[in-house]
């Protein structure tokens, strides 16, 4: 199908974009890569009166490490993030997860920030952001604020960003030295949205697991942190037994929905298997 009619603005400065957002609020949608918004327009799932295209804003396509943080701007495309050495250095979890995010032509236009704002429940990066204590730098005509990942993702296709706010940058604290990370996913076709995905980071101290983070996508209304599984692992000796126990706790911690592709039992099963694998791989990458 074709998009419904809308007014189109293509501001050339951030101030101009924020003024347009302030003026149109709920009636407007930001157009970044368009790889989620345009499908929704084509399917007439959304009917914005105004599109504010941010693609010509200058200076927002950075992917760099600054002050101990990985900083990724609103116009950094998936492809730039996937190929960035800064990401591999600062966030091994993001680097491990990125190959699962969509396909070449989608990556050429889609942005990480747009992906976080879209918050599809099966999306990998909201889970990575949650595991990494990422911070969202939001700006509007009336000021700036920072929102942590924990508060940012509020449910299926919804976030804490206001209608007049632009996510200008996401900041991810640099992973602690020695931490291991891994990401596993099952999807219908490589690059498609996950049935279930699991990411894990683990550190080893004195031969025991510490500070593990375990996150899942595709199991509910947004990224899910399996805290019970993390607790089960704290202080445990790394190995098959501990990983199995944590994986069982992760599977118990979710209440997944069902759809055409995967029912709840299958999703729970996937969480169990993928968590075990992710933990084993993450632990083997600790150094």
């Amino acid at each position, binding site marked *: 199908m074709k*998009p419904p009619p*809308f007014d*189109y603005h293509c501001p050339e400065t951030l101030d101009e974009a924020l003024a347009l957002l302030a003026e149109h609020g709920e009636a407007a949608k930001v157009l970044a890569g*368009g*790889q989620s918004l*345009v499908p929704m327009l*084509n399917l007439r799932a959304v009917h914005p009166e105004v599109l504010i295209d941010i693609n010509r804003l200058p200076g927002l396509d950075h992917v760099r490490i600054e002050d101990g943080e990985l900083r990724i701007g609103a116009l950094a495309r998936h492809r730039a993030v996937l190929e960035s050495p800064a990401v591999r250095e600062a966030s091994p979890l993001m680097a491990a997860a990125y190959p699962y995010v969509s*396909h070449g*032509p989608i990556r050429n236009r889609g942005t990480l920030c747009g992906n976080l704002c879209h918050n599809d429940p099966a999306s990998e990066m909201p889970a990575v952001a949650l595991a990494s204590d990422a911070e969202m730098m939001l700006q509007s005509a009336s000021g700036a604020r920072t929102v942590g990942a924990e508060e940012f993702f509020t449910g299926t296709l919804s976030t804490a960003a206001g209608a007049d706010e632009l996510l200008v940058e996401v900041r991810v604290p640099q992973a602690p030295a020695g931490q291991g990370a891994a990401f596993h996913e099952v999807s219908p076709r490589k690059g498609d949205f996950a049935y279930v995905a699991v990411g894990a980071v683990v550190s080893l101290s004195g031969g025991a697991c510490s500070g593990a983070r375990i996150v899942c996508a595709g199991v509910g209304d947004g990224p899910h942190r399996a805290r019970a599984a993390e607790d089960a692992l704290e202080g445990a000796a790394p190995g098959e037994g501990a990983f199995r126990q944590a994986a069982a706790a992760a599977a118990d911690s979710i209440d997944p929905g069902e759809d055409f592709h995967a029912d709840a039992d299958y999703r729970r099963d996937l969480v169990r298997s993928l968590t075990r694998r992710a933990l084993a791989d993450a632990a083997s990458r600790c150094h």
Partner: protein
Amino acid sequence: MTTPRTVELVVNGERRAADAEPRTLLSDFLREGLGLTGTHVGCEHGVCGACTVLVDGQSVRSCLMLAVQAEGSEVRTIEGLGGADDMHPLQEAFWEKHGLQCGFCTPGMLMTAVELLESTPGAGMDEIREAISSNLCRCTGYQTIVEAVQAAAERMQGEGQ
């Protein structure tokens, strides 16, 4: 401002201009505005890849880009790849290896493969499979497409030397 505006761009090396509403998709603009019906339209939500074209050298889904966004860009479509008398090595290889049956997916497959072989000359099996994994084909079973791209990669490398 839902009214049409003129979009100017370069398509296959030629300056072109036509009117488009803001909501006009690049795929429809190419087909209906410029009469370039070689770009196919399948799903219109990014999944099938039939509409893939190159914008400023990169593969994109033309069904997920607005025509007005392509203002000032350089677009390459299947029409620019080669004709019956001057086929691109990829077109020759698809012909020889039976990389197509009905041909619906072919323009998208070829433009995806062009991006791969121009950015990664001598691309191997894994890279070829990864690249075309974004495009659906309901006829061939993909194997002959992979073989065609591989044959074209070898031929293009040979020519490059």
